[in-house]
């Protein structure tokens, strides 16, 4: 009984969260939910096997058999897009989780230790932030290559310093709060203070920052794959699909338009949602 009650309460909280969003936020929320569903279910819905050559016509237009037409080799664009979205979203989620977890952990570490630990870490992160993200990505890919795991790590390395900076400024403010001072005076260790007293109070802004990093990473990985430096064949994310079909650009082929629109709806959706979150004060930083 009580379990069912909790579920309904949760449901009604979800419903009121959605109801309180402004229109743009509702659109963003819907786009995000849609793409997460595609990432989970996409390959099951795909009408054709991903690598199959299904038609003799390349760059076919939309038809009843091929909703999004065919690509430069006569493969079904919709099927490839459904699987490509899983790569794009999966890698970006992994990269964003890693960036936020390490960035926040280091920020808490710097905050509770202060002194030269804080000084050195912050100096180092400031240096990394001063390298434009795509330039940084090119250098890292040139040095390490671009397997799926490396791409995830590269994305995490590039967007971790930004999260560190935000988490540190949140943590430094919380560190001065009375209840944190009380916990220290009680003799709690730094791990306890960081994890129990400080961290729970910065979760909301961190969640918004996580969404922001996710959006940046989607754009970064799409750009890398578009340049041929990201996800390598036979795997293909949405950026790879744009690259493969770039020869259709002079004719404005659907095969290049569809994956571009897919990427844009993911990133725009996330951006609209973040902007509509309650209690947000900052504007989106120019970190892209």
């Amino acid at each position, binding site marked *: 009984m009580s379990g069912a009650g909790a579920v309904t309460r949760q449901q009604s909280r979800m419903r009121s969260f959605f109801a309180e969003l402004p229109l*743009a936020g509702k659109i963003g929320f819907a786009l995000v939910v849609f793409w997460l569903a595609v990432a989970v279910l996409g390959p099951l819905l795909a009408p054709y096997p991903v690598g199959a050559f299904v038609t003799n016509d390349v760059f076919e237009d939309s038809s009843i058999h091929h909703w999004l037409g065919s690509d430069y080799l006569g493969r079904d664009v919709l099927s490839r897009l459904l699987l490509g979205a899983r790569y794009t979203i999966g890698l970006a989620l992994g990269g964003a989780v890693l960036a936020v977890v390490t960035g926040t952990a280091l920020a808490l570490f710097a905050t509770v230790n202060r002194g030269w630990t804080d000084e050195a870490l912050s*100096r180092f992160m*400031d*240096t*990394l932030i*001063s*390298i*434009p*993200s*795509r*330039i940084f990505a*090119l*250098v*890292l*890919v*040139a*040095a*390490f290559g671009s397997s799926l795991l490396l791409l995830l790590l590269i994305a995490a390395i590039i967007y971790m310093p930004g999260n560190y900076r935000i988490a540190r400024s949140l943590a430094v403010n919380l560190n001065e709060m009375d209840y944190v001072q009380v916990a220290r005076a009680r003799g709690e260790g730094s791990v306890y203070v960081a994890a129990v007293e400080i961290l729970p109070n910065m979760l909301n802004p961190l969640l918004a920052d996580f969404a922001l990093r996710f*959006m940046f990473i989607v*754009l970064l990985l*799409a*750009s890398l794959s*578009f*340049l*041929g*430096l990201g996800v390598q064949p036979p795997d293909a994310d949405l950026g790879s699909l*744009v690259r493969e079909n*770039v020869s259709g*650009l*002079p*004719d*404005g082929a659907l095969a*290049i*338009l569809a994956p*571009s*629109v897919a*990427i*844009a709806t993911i*990133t*725009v959706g*996330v*951006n*609209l949602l973040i*902007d509509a979150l309650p209690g947000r004060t900052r*504007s*989106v930083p*120019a970190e*892209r």
Partner: protein
Amino acid sequence: MASIAANPPKRPSSTVREILLLILIRTAYALLTLFLVSIVVFVISGLLPGDAAQEMLGQSATPGQVAALRHEYGLDLPAHIRYLSWVRGMFGGNAGRSIVANMPVSEIIADRLPNSLVLAGLTTAIAVPLALFIGIYSAVKRGTLIDRALNITTLSMVAMPEFLVATIGVLIFAVHLRWLPSITLTSKDTTWGEFLRSYALPVLSLAVVVIAQMARMTRAAVVDQLGRPYVEMAVLKGVPPRRLILWHVLPNAIGPIANAVALSLSYLLGGAIIVETIFNYPGLASLMVNAVTSRDMALLQTCAMIFCGAYLLLVLIADVAAILANPRLRSQ
């Protein structure tokens, strides 16, 4: 500037000296960051053993051949010596030899850099006035339907991948309307009309994100000013709206706006990578992408440092603009 006049001008010479000192400190800080960035770039790009010497000679090369080629290009020296000679070389305009093109890096870059500057310059020339207009207009009309529409538009544009803008641009202007060529070709003897037509789509693709970002930051800066008491005073005094914006608000918002412009322009550096590639444009960014593909580290390092230097310069300009505009920042 109005904000300076608002300070009690007791000892103007010392205030000027303080500002200069602050700007000097920021410049030194930027140079220190550039130095640290150069170490990071150098360390990362030299981290793995495989280098261009290996790549060039291929699988069949004997270890002796590889060693000889590495020696010829100085790749066998200790890292700190290579780093110092690289930094010294960059300051002297001699950034080493591209091992793939077998040409001095400085020559290759001298060939490409002007193209990138033309693209960035044209984009700036179009983006800045348009963004300032949109930003100021929506700040003045804040809260109205048109402001909300502009807000959602710019919010979406900020997150737009360049290749979507490029694709839609090609679709509309090259395929359907047939106004523009879809590929940028630059040769020496083009007329002005051809020149502008061939640049239209790359500039459009680059400008969309810059305009959106810049317009949002400009709007925020102007809205911030509009909430100040002096604006209320001016309104109560009966100052007409146009004069209020042009004479009262803009002089005070010029610092934050300059800050917004400089920060937004830094986006051009990353955007150019995609736009130059998609339109086959022979600029610095596409050169850097080629350097990654061929693992041409000397070329890659130099391109990376040029981009990082340009980025830090823009951030420095933004910082200085903020200092000059805000008397409270000066005392920090």
